[in-house]
């Protein structure tokens, strides 16, 4: 509850992370780092809905895609600067998320998940089929790095991958601050109340609908924000990453890290992404191991890494709550 305690840890972490490129790691390492930060942002966005508001929005990756495509299309076809297109993408996603919420919040629980799943599938298919705008199945190719990024990296005697790494780090820091502020506020407490029980929250005088809408807006804006970084980082956009599979992957990260926690999304993404990368060389056996690993994590660390850590810290003192 006390945002103060963790703040120092976060600042140290971010400073260390920012210094990493100067150790000249391989560009693959930086690539992994950048990927982790981008997906972690997506997980933070999902956490706003699932972790704080208690609603599983399965169209989350769709907004990631909308953000990414917006940046791609605006920079490639309209000649916008990335630095302008990026916030525009986040705003567009916020607006669309809000609109979706207007209808989606008529449904509850599983119906809400399936409703948004439908929306997620539709977003992906529309992106895929709208050839003229999105390049359809060919995708958008040749999205350029943001202006200044290469110069910055070169100026420091580093490669472009460091530039992307810093861009993602910057975005992640913004995301973490935004999410932390939203969570530890009067507004955030109301979201937690909704998660704990909608009817109770309503009778306590909370305007449930309005709060959900705002949570959705924040969540989709973060997704679009992450998407914008992704688009310039990969330089290519295809519709495949905008579908429910990406949402489920993000959900995995979130769950493994710890739903509803501040550190969970980053920890979970970091761990699972690295594990998946190291399992890759096992080829045929990668999912033979990854699948059961997931099951074990869910069963033996139900509150994610953060929960596990807290249990360890509580130590022999015990007091496990049921």
């Amino acid at each position, binding site marked *: 509850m006390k945002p103060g305690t963790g703040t120092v840890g976060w600042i140290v972490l971010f400073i260390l992370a920012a210094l990493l490129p100067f150790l000249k790691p391989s560009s693959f390492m930086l690539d992994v780092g950048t990927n982790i930060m981008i997906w972690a942002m997506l997980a933070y966005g999902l956490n706003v809905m699932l972790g704080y508001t208690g609603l599983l929005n399965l169209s989350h990756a769709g907004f990631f895609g909308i953000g990414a495509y917006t940046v791609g299309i605006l920079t490639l076809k309209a000649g916008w600067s990335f630095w302008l297109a990026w916030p525009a993408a986040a705003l567009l996603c916020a607006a669309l998320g809000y609109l979706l919420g207007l209808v989606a919040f008529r449904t509850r629980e599983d119906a809400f998940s399936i409703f948004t799943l439908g929306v997620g599938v539709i977003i992906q298919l529309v992106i895929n089929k709208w050839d003229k705008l999105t390049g359809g199945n060919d995708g958008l190719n040749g999205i350029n790095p943001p202006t200044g990024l290469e110069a910055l990296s070169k100026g420091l005697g580093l490669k472009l991958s460091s530039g992307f790494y810093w861009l993602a780090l910057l975005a992640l820091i913004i995301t973490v601050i935004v999410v932390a502020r*939203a969570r530890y*506020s009067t507004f955030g407490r109301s979201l*937690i*109340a909704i998660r704990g029980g909608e*009817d109770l929250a309503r009778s306590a*005088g909370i305007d449930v609908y309005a709060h959900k809408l705002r949570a959705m*807006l*924040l969540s989709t804006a973060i997704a679009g924000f992450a998407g914008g970084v992704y688009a310039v980082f990969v330089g290519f956009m295809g519709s495949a990453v905008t579908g429910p599979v990406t949402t489920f992957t993000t959900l995995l990260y979130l769950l493994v890290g710890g739903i509803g926690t501040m550190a969970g999304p980053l920890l979970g993404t970091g761990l699972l992404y690295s594990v998946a990368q190291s399992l890759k060389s096992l080829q045929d056996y990668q999912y033979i191991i990854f699948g059961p690993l997931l099951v074990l994590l869910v069963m033996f660390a139900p509150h994610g890494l953060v929960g596990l850590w807290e249990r360890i810290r509580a130590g022999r003192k015990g007091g496990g709550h049921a």
Partner: protein
Amino acid sequence: MLDVQGLGIRFGGNQAVQDVTASIPAGQITAIIGPNGAGKSTFFNLISGFYQPTSGKIVFLGEDITPLKTHQVVARGIARTFQTTTIYRELSVLENAMIGHRVRTKAGLLDALLRTGREKRDDQESRAGAMRALERVGLATQANRPAGALTQEGQKRVGIAMALSSDPKLLLLDEPAAGMNPEETVNLMALIRELVAGGLTIALVEHKMSLVMGLADQILVLHHGQKISQGTPGEVSRDPAVIEAYLGSHAHGGQMGQSTQGADHA
């Protein structure tokens, strides 16, 4: 303070509340009694905007609040507790109360993100408002414990604190003494009296006649969704319709337990 006119609601073929016209006077305690399934909880649900009535009108302090949503009703000054204790068990007692105070604050998402003055003010106010409510129900010392760790009775108090922190003018309590032993019931009665003395108007549903008879200024009796009687405790307990439908032999005893014993020995 509150007037309902011709209030009714049906669930499918079941007319749970039917053409109820009544009023809850300010500064008093109104008890609503009636057999199980009479429509008492539903009546509360209608007033608090949880259900939309299929007929009739609810007027609060001169304003028609019938079409309002629950949170708007709470904002007008009507708070409630539930029949089965519902609170946020995993949150602290203080947080529960702070959630109840939300309706009195304005800070939204933008305030949270920008950490505006309003956010800071609202946050402090929530804390202060919640603490005030906790003091009123005698839970101030337990503020930082998880609500679920409290006893049944403590949890009931948390529920009341949550309602109180919304600064209500009218408080609706649905079976506040259920599951309490006589000693605890007496404490609760004292609490309710204190609240009323502090200027609050209270309406409550209860099956414990000792509490009802000991507290109520006015009693409203529902049966099959309809109002069958209204009056002071004395009047109501002499009303044959009420005795027939609800009180049975309790009409003459003050304490329900004693009369059961009496019936037993008869």
